Protein backbone atom coordinates (compact mmCIF):
# COMPACT_ATOMS: atom_id res chain seq x y z
CA UNK A 1 0.00 0.00 0.00
CA UNK A 2 1.10 3.54 -0.68
CA UNK A 3 1.82 6.10 2.06
CA UNK A 4 -1.38 7.91 1.10
CA UNK A 5 -3.45 4.80 1.81
CA UNK A 6 -1.88 4.48 5.28
CA UNK A 7 -2.56 8.13 6.05
CA UNK A 8 -6.09 7.82 4.70
CA UNK A 9 -6.95 4.68 6.67
CA UNK A 10 -5.22 6.10 9.74
CA UNK A 11 -7.40 9.21 9.56
CA UNK A 12 -10.55 7.08 9.27
CA UNK A 13 -9.52 5.09 12.35
CA UNK A 14 -8.68 8.29 14.25
CA UNK A 15 -12.00 9.92 13.36
CA UNK A 16 -13.83 6.72 14.33
CA UNK A 17 -12.12 6.67 17.75
CA UNK A 18 -12.86 10.37 18.28
CA UNK A 19 -16.50 9.94 17.19
CA UNK A 20 -16.93 7.10 19.73
CA UNK A 21 -15.29 9.24 22.39
CA UNK A 22 -17.53 12.18 21.55
CA UNK A 23 -20.58 9.89 21.83
CA UNK A 24 -19.32 8.73 25.21
CA UNK A 25 -19.05 12.40 26.22
CA UNK A 26 -22.77 12.74 25.59
CA UNK A 27 -23.11 13.95 22.01
CA UNK A 28 -25.76 11.55 20.67
CA UNK A 29 -25.45 12.21 16.89
CA UNK A 30 -21.83 10.98 17.04
CA UNK A 31 -23.17 7.43 17.34
CA UNK A 32 -24.36 7.53 13.72
CA UNK A 33 -21.09 9.06 12.60
CA UNK A 34 -19.24 6.26 14.38
CA UNK A 35 -21.39 3.60 12.64
CA UNK A 36 -20.79 5.30 9.29
CA UNK A 37 -17.04 5.48 9.90
CA UNK A 38 -16.98 1.79 10.82
CA UNK A 39 -18.70 0.97 7.53
CA UNK A 40 -16.28 3.27 5.68
CA UNK A 41 -13.31 1.58 7.31
CA UNK A 42 -14.56 -1.87 6.34
CA UNK A 43 -15.22 -0.77 2.76
CA UNK A 44 -11.87 0.97 2.37
CA UNK A 45 -9.99 -1.94 3.96
CA UNK A 46 -11.66 -4.30 1.51
CA UNK A 47 -10.79 -1.99 -1.42
CA UNK A 48 -7.19 -1.53 -0.22
CA UNK A 49 -6.52 -5.23 0.34
CA UNK A 50 -8.66 -6.72 -2.41
CA UNK A 51 -6.79 -8.36 -5.24
CA UNK A 52 -9.86 -8.27 -7.43
CA UNK A 53 -9.62 -5.70 -10.22
CA UNK A 54 -13.13 -4.42 -9.78
CA UNK A 55 -14.24 -3.20 -6.38
CA UNK A 56 -16.88 -0.69 -7.52
CA UNK A 57 -19.70 -2.85 -6.13
CA UNK A 58 -18.43 -2.19 -2.58
CA UNK A 59 -18.95 1.54 -3.06
CA UNK A 60 -22.35 0.98 -4.69
CA UNK A 61 -23.51 -1.03 -1.67
CA UNK A 62 -21.95 1.39 0.76
CA UNK A 63 -23.53 4.45 -0.88
CA UNK A 64 -27.20 4.14 0.25
CA UNK A 65 -26.10 3.29 3.79
CA UNK A 66 -23.84 6.31 3.83
CA UNK A 67 -26.73 8.55 2.77
CA UNK A 68 -29.10 6.98 5.32
CA UNK A 69 -26.65 7.33 8.21
CA UNK A 70 -25.79 10.94 7.33
CA UNK A 71 -29.49 11.73 7.15
CA UNK A 72 -30.04 10.17 10.57
CA UNK A 73 -27.11 12.27 11.82
CA UNK A 74 -28.85 15.37 10.48
CA UNK A 75 -32.17 14.30 12.01
CA UNK A 76 -30.52 14.00 15.41
CA UNK A 77 -28.38 17.14 15.15
CA UNK A 78 -30.51 19.47 13.04
CA UNK A 79 -33.43 21.68 14.02
CA UNK A 80 -37.06 20.53 13.92
CA UNK A 81 -39.12 21.56 10.91
CA UNK A 82 -40.54 20.60 7.55
CA UNK A 83 -37.07 19.99 6.12
CA UNK A 84 -36.55 17.25 8.68
CA UNK A 85 -39.71 15.42 7.53
CA UNK A 86 -38.49 15.73 3.94
CA UNK A 87 -35.16 14.16 4.89
CA UNK A 88 -36.96 11.32 6.67
CA UNK A 89 -38.89 10.46 3.50
CA UNK A 90 -35.80 10.83 1.34
CA UNK A 91 -34.00 7.94 3.08
CA UNK A 92 -36.09 5.03 1.71
CA UNK A 93 -36.58 6.87 -1.58
CA UNK A 94 -32.85 7.28 -2.08
CA UNK A 95 -32.25 3.66 -1.05
CA UNK A 96 -34.54 2.44 -3.84
CA UNK A 97 -33.19 4.99 -6.33
CA UNK A 98 -29.53 4.18 -5.62
CA UNK A 99 -29.93 0.44 -5.91
CA UNK A 100 -32.03 0.82 -9.07
CA UNK A 101 -29.35 2.99 -10.71
CA UNK A 102 -26.66 0.52 -9.64
CA UNK A 103 -28.61 -2.39 -11.13
CA UNK A 104 -29.33 -0.52 -14.36
CA UNK A 105 -25.84 0.94 -14.94
CA UNK A 106 -23.88 -1.87 -13.41
CA UNK A 107 -22.25 -2.16 -10.00
CA UNK A 108 -18.78 -1.53 -11.34
CA UNK A 109 -18.89 2.01 -12.69
CA UNK A 110 -17.27 4.61 -10.43
CA UNK A 111 -18.14 7.49 -10.25
CA UNK A 112 -21.80 6.79 -10.85
CA UNK A 113 -24.95 8.83 -11.29
CA UNK A 114 -26.43 7.75 -7.92
CA UNK A 115 -23.25 8.83 -6.11
CA UNK A 116 -23.40 12.24 -7.81
CA UNK A 117 -27.07 12.64 -6.81
CA UNK A 118 -26.26 11.59 -3.23
CA UNK A 119 -23.59 14.24 -2.98
CA UNK A 120 -25.86 16.96 -4.39
CA UNK A 121 -28.39 16.04 -1.67
CA UNK A 122 -25.70 16.00 1.02
CA UNK A 123 -24.44 19.39 -0.14
CA UNK A 124 -27.95 20.81 0.35
CA UNK A 125 -28.54 19.05 3.69
CA UNK A 126 -25.27 20.17 5.24
CA UNK A 127 -25.58 23.71 3.88
CA UNK A 128 -28.95 23.87 5.65
CA UNK A 129 -27.44 22.45 8.84
CA UNK A 130 -24.62 25.00 8.69
CA UNK A 131 -27.12 27.88 8.71
CA UNK A 132 -29.31 26.32 11.37
CA UNK A 133 -26.59 25.70 13.96
CA UNK A 134 -27.56 27.11 17.29
CA UNK A 135 -24.59 27.55 19.58
CA UNK A 136 -25.95 27.98 23.13
CA UNK A 137 -24.96 30.99 25.20
CA UNK A 138 -23.92 33.05 22.17
CA UNK A 139 -20.95 30.72 21.68
CA UNK A 140 -18.75 30.80 18.59
CA UNK A 141 -20.12 28.72 15.76
CA UNK A 142 -16.81 27.08 14.86
CA UNK A 143 -16.63 25.59 18.36
CA UNK A 144 -19.75 23.58 17.45
CA UNK A 145 -18.97 20.00 16.30
CA UNK A 146 -21.66 20.15 13.59
CA UNK A 147 -19.96 23.15 12.02
CA UNK A 148 -16.99 20.94 11.15
CA UNK A 149 -19.15 18.00 10.10
CA UNK A 150 -21.17 20.30 7.82
CA UNK A 151 -18.09 21.98 6.33
CA UNK A 152 -16.43 18.57 5.84
CA UNK A 153 -19.33 17.08 3.90
CA UNK A 154 -20.06 20.25 1.96
CA UNK A 155 -16.56 20.44 0.55
CA UNK A 156 -16.27 16.69 0.03
CA UNK A 157 -19.68 16.47 -1.63
CA UNK A 158 -18.92 19.49 -3.80
CA UNK A 159 -15.78 17.75 -4.99
CA UNK A 160 -17.59 14.50 -5.70
CA UNK A 161 -20.38 16.31 -7.56
CA UNK A 162 -17.67 17.80 -9.74
CA UNK A 163 -16.46 14.26 -10.45
CA UNK A 164 -19.85 13.60 -12.03
CA UNK A 165 -18.06 14.90 -15.11
CA UNK A 166 -15.67 11.99 -14.93
CA UNK A 167 -17.48 9.76 -17.46
CA UNK A 168 -17.31 12.63 -19.97
CA UNK A 169 -13.63 13.24 -19.20
CA UNK A 170 -12.93 9.56 -19.76
CA UNK A 171 -14.20 9.86 -23.33
CA UNK A 172 -11.79 12.71 -24.13
CA UNK A 173 -8.75 11.40 -22.28
CA UNK A 174 -8.88 8.24 -20.16
CA UNK A 175 -5.33 8.40 -18.76
CA UNK A 176 -5.40 12.08 -17.79
CA UNK A 177 -8.91 11.69 -16.38
CA UNK A 178 -7.88 8.77 -14.15
CA UNK A 179 -4.87 10.74 -12.94
CA UNK A 180 -7.02 13.77 -12.16
CA UNK A 181 -9.62 11.64 -10.39
CA UNK A 182 -6.95 10.44 -7.98
CA UNK A 183 -5.57 13.97 -7.59
CA UNK A 184 -8.99 15.36 -6.66
CA UNK A 185 -10.13 12.52 -4.40
CA UNK A 186 -6.98 12.34 -2.28
CA UNK A 187 -7.12 15.86 -0.77
CA UNK A 188 -10.90 15.65 -0.48
CA UNK A 189 -10.66 12.48 1.60
CA UNK A 190 -7.95 13.95 3.83
CA UNK A 191 -10.01 17.13 4.30
CA UNK A 192 -13.15 15.15 5.14
CA UNK A 193 -11.62 13.04 7.88
CA UNK A 194 -9.55 15.89 9.31
CA UNK A 195 -12.70 18.00 9.70
CA UNK A 196 -14.55 15.08 11.29
CA UNK A 197 -11.68 14.71 13.77
CA UNK A 198 -11.81 18.45 14.60
CA UNK A 199 -15.59 18.25 15.04
CA UNK A 200 -15.30 15.36 17.51
CA UNK A 201 -12.44 17.14 19.28
CA UNK A 202 -14.78 20.10 19.94
CA UNK A 203 -16.84 17.70 22.07
CA UNK A 204 -13.98 15.69 23.53
CA UNK A 205 -12.04 18.78 24.60
CA UNK A 206 -15.08 19.73 26.66
CA UNK A 207 -15.58 23.13 25.05
CA UNK A 208 -19.08 22.09 24.15
CA UNK A 209 -21.40 20.81 26.84
CA UNK A 210 -24.23 18.40 26.02
CA UNK A 211 -26.95 16.96 28.15
CA UNK A 212 -26.82 13.19 27.85
Amino acid at each position, binding site marked *: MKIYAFVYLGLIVLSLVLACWSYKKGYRPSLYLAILLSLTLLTELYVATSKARSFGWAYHLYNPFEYALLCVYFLKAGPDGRFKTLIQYSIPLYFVFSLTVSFLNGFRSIPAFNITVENILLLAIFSYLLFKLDPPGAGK*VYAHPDFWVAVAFMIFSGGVVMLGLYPYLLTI*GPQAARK*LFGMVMAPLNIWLYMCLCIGSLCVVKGRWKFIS
Partner: protein
Amino acid sequence: MRSERPLEIHLIVILISVFFILLIAIIIVTALFYHSKKRLHAIEVANFGEILLQSQLEVKEQTLRTVGTDLHDNIGQLLSLTALMLGSIEAGDWKLARDKIDSAIDLTNESLAELRSLGKLIHGEQLLAMGLDEAVRKAAERIIKSGKYEVNYRCADLPSPGSNGKDLIIYRVIQEILANIIKHACATTIDIGIDYQDNHLQVKISDDGLGFDPPALTGTQKGMGLFNIQKRVAALNGQTGISAVPEGGTAINFVIPYP
Protein backbone atom coordinates in the same frame (compact mmCIF):
# COMPACT_ATOMS: atom_id res chain seq x y z
CA MET B 1 -9.24 5.40 -31.49
CA ARG B 2 -9.64 8.91 -30.09
CA SER B 3 -6.54 10.86 -29.17
CA GLU B 4 -6.01 12.11 -25.61
CA ARG B 5 -6.76 15.75 -24.96
CA PRO B 6 -5.14 16.38 -21.56
CA LEU B 7 -5.17 20.18 -21.94
CA GLU B 8 -8.93 20.18 -22.43
CA ILE B 9 -9.37 17.88 -19.41
CA HIS B 10 -7.18 20.08 -17.23
CA LEU B 11 -9.04 23.19 -18.33
CA ILE B 12 -12.45 21.63 -17.58
CA VAL B 13 -11.32 20.34 -14.20
CA ILE B 14 -9.73 23.67 -13.23
CA LEU B 15 -12.82 25.67 -14.26
CA ILE B 16 -15.25 23.36 -12.50
CA SER B 17 -13.00 23.18 -9.41
CA VAL B 18 -12.82 26.97 -9.20
CA PHE B 19 -16.60 27.15 -9.58
CA PHE B 20 -17.25 24.65 -6.78
CA ILE B 21 -14.59 26.06 -4.47
CA LEU B 22 -16.07 29.55 -4.91
CA LEU B 23 -19.63 28.30 -4.44
CA ILE B 24 -18.84 26.41 -1.26
CA ALA B 25 -16.60 29.20 0.05
CA ILE B 26 -19.45 31.69 -0.47
CA ILE B 27 -21.89 29.41 1.38
CA ILE B 28 -19.48 28.94 4.30
CA VAL B 29 -18.54 32.63 4.53
CA THR B 30 -22.22 33.63 4.37
CA ALA B 31 -23.03 31.13 7.12
CA LEU B 32 -20.17 32.45 9.27
CA PHE B 33 -21.31 36.04 8.69
CA TYR B 34 -24.89 35.07 9.52
CA HIS B 35 -23.84 33.32 12.73
CA SER B 36 -21.60 36.20 13.72
CA LYS B 37 -24.54 38.63 13.34
CA LYS B 38 -26.79 36.24 15.25
CA ARG B 39 -24.21 36.02 18.03
CA LEU B 40 -23.88 39.81 18.25
CA HIS B 41 -27.66 40.09 18.41
CA ALA B 42 -27.81 37.49 21.20
CA ILE B 43 -25.15 39.44 23.13
CA GLU B 44 -27.12 42.68 22.62
CA VAL B 45 -30.32 41.03 23.84
CA ALA B 46 -28.50 39.67 26.90
CA ASN B 47 -27.01 43.13 27.61
CA PHE B 48 -30.41 44.76 27.21
CA GLY B 49 -31.92 42.24 29.66
CA GLU B 50 -29.15 42.92 32.15
CA ILE B 51 -29.56 46.71 31.86
CA LEU B 52 -33.34 46.39 32.13
CA LEU B 53 -33.05 44.33 35.31
CA GLN B 54 -30.55 46.75 36.78
CA SER B 55 -32.81 49.70 35.87
CA GLN B 56 -35.79 47.99 37.50
CA LEU B 57 -33.81 47.50 40.69
CA GLU B 58 -32.52 51.08 40.65
CA VAL B 59 -35.96 52.55 39.99
CA LYS B 60 -37.25 50.58 42.99
CA GLU B 61 -34.28 51.67 45.11
CA GLN B 62 -34.76 55.31 44.12
CA THR B 63 -38.50 55.04 44.83
CA LEU B 64 -37.88 53.60 48.29
CA ARG B 65 -35.37 56.39 48.96
CA THR B 66 -37.98 59.00 47.96
CA VAL B 67 -40.61 57.24 50.07
CA GLY B 68 -38.23 57.21 53.05
CA THR B 69 -37.40 60.90 52.66
CA ASP B 70 -41.05 61.82 52.21
CA LEU B 71 -42.15 59.80 55.24
CA HIS B 72 -39.51 61.49 57.36
CA ASP B 73 -39.60 65.05 56.05
CA ASN B 74 -43.20 65.45 54.97
CA ILE B 75 -45.67 62.99 56.43
CA GLY B 76 -43.68 62.67 59.65
CA GLN B 77 -43.80 66.44 60.11
CA LEU B 78 -47.52 66.55 59.37
CA LEU B 79 -48.28 63.78 61.86
CA SER B 80 -46.06 65.38 64.52
CA LEU B 81 -47.91 68.63 64.02
CA THR B 82 -51.25 66.79 64.28
CA ALA B 83 -50.17 65.14 67.52
CA LEU B 84 -48.99 68.50 68.86
CA MET B 85 -52.26 70.11 67.87
CA LEU B 86 -54.38 67.41 69.55
CA GLY B 87 -52.16 67.44 72.64
CA SER B 88 -52.65 71.17 73.12
CA ILE B 89 -56.47 70.96 73.33
CA GLU B 90 -57.79 72.18 76.66
CA ALA B 91 -61.20 71.17 77.92
CA GLY B 92 -62.09 74.66 79.16
CA ASP B 93 -62.10 76.56 75.87
CA TRP B 94 -64.55 74.74 73.58
CA LYS B 95 -64.25 77.20 70.65
CA LEU B 96 -60.44 77.02 70.58
CA ALA B 97 -60.61 73.25 70.99
CA ARG B 98 -62.99 73.06 68.04
CA ASP B 99 -60.54 75.10 65.87
CA LYS B 100 -57.64 72.86 66.89
CA ILE B 101 -59.65 69.72 66.12
CA ASP B 102 -60.51 71.16 62.67
CA SER B 103 -56.84 71.92 62.05
CA ALA B 104 -55.91 68.40 63.18
CA ILE B 105 -58.50 66.97 60.76
CA ASP B 106 -57.02 69.08 57.91
CA LEU B 107 -53.52 67.91 58.77
CA THR B 108 -54.68 64.29 58.88
CA ASN B 109 -56.35 64.66 55.48
CA GLU B 110 -53.18 66.23 54.09
CA SER B 111 -51.16 63.31 55.48
CA LEU B 112 -53.58 60.85 53.87
CA ALA B 113 -53.24 62.62 50.52
CA GLU B 114 -49.45 62.46 50.83
CA LEU B 115 -49.65 58.76 51.71
CA ARG B 116 -51.85 58.06 48.68
CA SER B 117 -49.38 59.87 46.46
CA LEU B 118 -46.55 57.81 47.96
CA GLY B 119 -48.56 54.65 47.39
CA LYS B 120 -48.78 55.49 43.68
CA LEU B 121 -45.04 56.11 43.59
CA ILE B 122 -44.31 52.71 45.13
CA HIS B 123 -46.04 51.05 42.19
CA GLY B 124 -43.38 52.29 39.78
CA GLU B 125 -44.54 49.96 36.99
CA GLN B 126 -48.04 51.43 37.19
CA LEU B 127 -46.45 54.85 36.91
CA LEU B 128 -44.92 53.82 33.58
CA ALA B 129 -48.15 52.16 32.48
CA MET B 130 -49.59 55.68 32.33
CA GLY B 131 -46.86 56.49 29.84
CA LEU B 132 -43.37 57.93 29.92
CA ASP B 133 -44.73 61.50 29.75
CA GLU B 134 -46.86 61.02 32.86
CA ALA B 135 -44.08 59.25 34.77
CA VAL B 136 -41.55 62.03 34.07
CA ARG B 137 -44.21 64.66 34.85
CA LYS B 138 -44.76 63.05 38.27
CA ALA B 139 -40.99 63.03 38.88
CA ALA B 140 -40.86 66.74 37.96
CA GLU B 141 -43.80 67.48 40.27
CA ARG B 142 -42.01 65.86 43.19
CA ILE B 143 -38.95 68.04 42.57
CA ILE B 144 -41.14 71.17 42.40
CA LYS B 145 -42.84 70.12 45.64
CA SER B 146 -39.51 70.24 47.47
CA GLY B 147 -39.66 74.00 46.92
CA LYS B 148 -35.98 74.24 46.06
CA TYR B 149 -36.23 74.14 42.27
CA GLU B 150 -38.13 75.67 39.44
CA VAL B 151 -38.79 72.90 36.94
CA ASN B 152 -39.91 73.55 33.36
CA TYR B 153 -41.25 70.38 31.84
CA ARG B 154 -42.27 70.03 28.21
CA CYS B 155 -43.19 66.85 26.34
CA ALA B 156 -44.25 66.32 22.75
CA ASP B 157 -47.01 63.87 21.82
CA LEU B 158 -45.47 60.45 22.15
CA PRO B 159 -46.59 57.32 20.32
CA SER B 160 -47.93 54.48 22.46
CA PRO B 161 -44.97 52.85 24.18
CA GLY B 162 -43.30 50.01 22.30
CA SER B 163 -41.85 47.95 25.06
CA ASN B 164 -42.26 48.75 28.72
CA GLY B 165 -38.63 47.72 29.13
CA LYS B 166 -37.46 50.53 26.86
CA ASP B 167 -39.61 53.11 28.70
CA LEU B 168 -38.30 51.86 32.03
CA ILE B 169 -34.67 52.30 30.93
CA ILE B 170 -35.41 55.81 29.55
CA TYR B 171 -37.22 56.71 32.78
CA ARG B 172 -34.28 55.43 34.82
CA VAL B 173 -31.81 57.50 32.76
CA ILE B 174 -33.94 60.62 33.33
CA GLN B 175 -34.25 59.77 37.03
CA GLU B 176 -30.47 59.39 37.30
CA ILE B 177 -29.81 62.72 35.57
CA LEU B 178 -32.30 64.46 37.88
CA ALA B 179 -30.78 62.76 40.95
CA ASN B 180 -27.32 63.97 39.84
CA ILE B 181 -28.62 67.54 39.49
CA ILE B 182 -30.17 67.43 42.96
CA LYS B 183 -27.06 65.87 44.48
CA HIS B 184 -24.25 67.82 42.84
CA ALA B 185 -25.40 70.78 40.76
CA CYS B 186 -26.66 73.34 43.31
CA ALA B 187 -29.08 74.45 40.60
CA THR B 188 -32.25 76.52 40.94
CA THR B 189 -33.82 75.85 37.54
CA ILE B 190 -34.17 72.54 35.72
CA ASP B 191 -35.46 72.28 32.15
CA ILE B 192 -36.75 68.91 30.94
CA GLY B 193 -37.74 68.59 27.29
CA ILE B 194 -38.92 65.47 25.49
CA ASP B 195 -39.33 65.68 21.71
CA TYR B 196 -40.40 63.08 19.22
CA GLN B 197 -39.47 63.22 15.56
CA ASP B 198 -38.82 60.69 12.77
CA ASN B 199 -39.23 57.67 15.06
CA HIS B 200 -36.65 59.07 17.44
CA LEU B 201 -37.12 60.31 20.99
CA GLN B 202 -34.94 63.22 22.03
CA VAL B 203 -34.61 64.04 25.71
CA LYS B 204 -32.83 67.18 26.87
CA ILE B 205 -32.29 68.01 30.53
CA SER B 206 -30.42 71.14 31.50
CA ASP B 207 -29.77 73.06 34.70
CA ASP B 208 -28.23 76.34 35.76
CA GLY B 209 -26.04 74.79 38.40
CA LEU B 210 -22.30 74.55 39.01
CA GLY B 211 -21.55 72.54 35.89
CA PHE B 212 -18.38 70.48 35.65
CA ASP B 213 -15.43 69.68 33.48
CA PRO B 214 -16.37 66.42 31.64
CA PRO B 215 -12.77 65.22 30.93
CA ALA B 216 -11.88 65.69 34.61
CA LEU B 217 -14.61 63.24 35.63
CA THR B 218 -13.38 60.39 33.44
CA GLY B 219 -12.51 57.34 35.55
CA THR B 220 -13.76 58.86 38.82
CA GLN B 221 -16.68 57.66 40.97
CA LYS B 222 -18.73 60.70 39.87
CA GLY B 223 -17.94 59.88 36.25
CA MET B 224 -19.45 56.41 36.73
CA GLY B 225 -22.95 57.93 36.83
CA LEU B 226 -22.41 59.57 33.45
CA PHE B 227 -20.86 56.36 32.11
CA ASN B 228 -23.95 54.42 33.24
CA ILE B 229 -26.21 56.91 31.48
CA GLN B 230 -24.19 56.57 28.25
CA LYS B 231 -24.13 52.76 28.56
CA ARG B 232 -27.91 52.56 28.98
CA VAL B 233 -28.59 54.90 26.11
CA ALA B 234 -26.17 52.88 23.93
CA ALA B 235 -28.03 49.67 24.87
CA LEU B 236 -31.11 51.28 23.31
CA ASN B 237 -29.07 52.09 20.18
CA GLY B 238 -29.07 55.76 21.13
CA GLN B 239 -26.50 58.50 21.47
CA THR B 240 -25.73 60.76 24.40
CA GLY B 241 -24.44 64.33 24.28
CA ILE B 242 -23.07 66.07 27.37
CA SER B 243 -22.39 69.76 27.40
CA ALA B 244 -21.08 71.17 30.66
CA VAL B 245 -19.01 74.18 31.64
CA PRO B 246 -17.69 74.81 35.17
CA GLU B 247 -19.99 77.41 36.78
CA GLY B 248 -22.04 77.46 33.58
CA GLY B 249 -24.65 74.72 34.04
CA THR B 250 -25.02 71.34 32.41
CA ALA B 251 -27.07 70.05 29.52
CA ILE B 252 -27.44 66.35 28.82
CA ASN B 253 -29.36 65.14 25.83
CA PHE B 254 -29.89 61.75 24.31
CA VAL B 255 -31.57 60.49 21.17
CA ILE B 256 -33.10 57.01 21.02
CA PRO B 257 -35.00 55.16 18.27
CA TYR B 258 -38.58 55.04 19.54
CA PRO B 259 -40.96 53.31 20.16
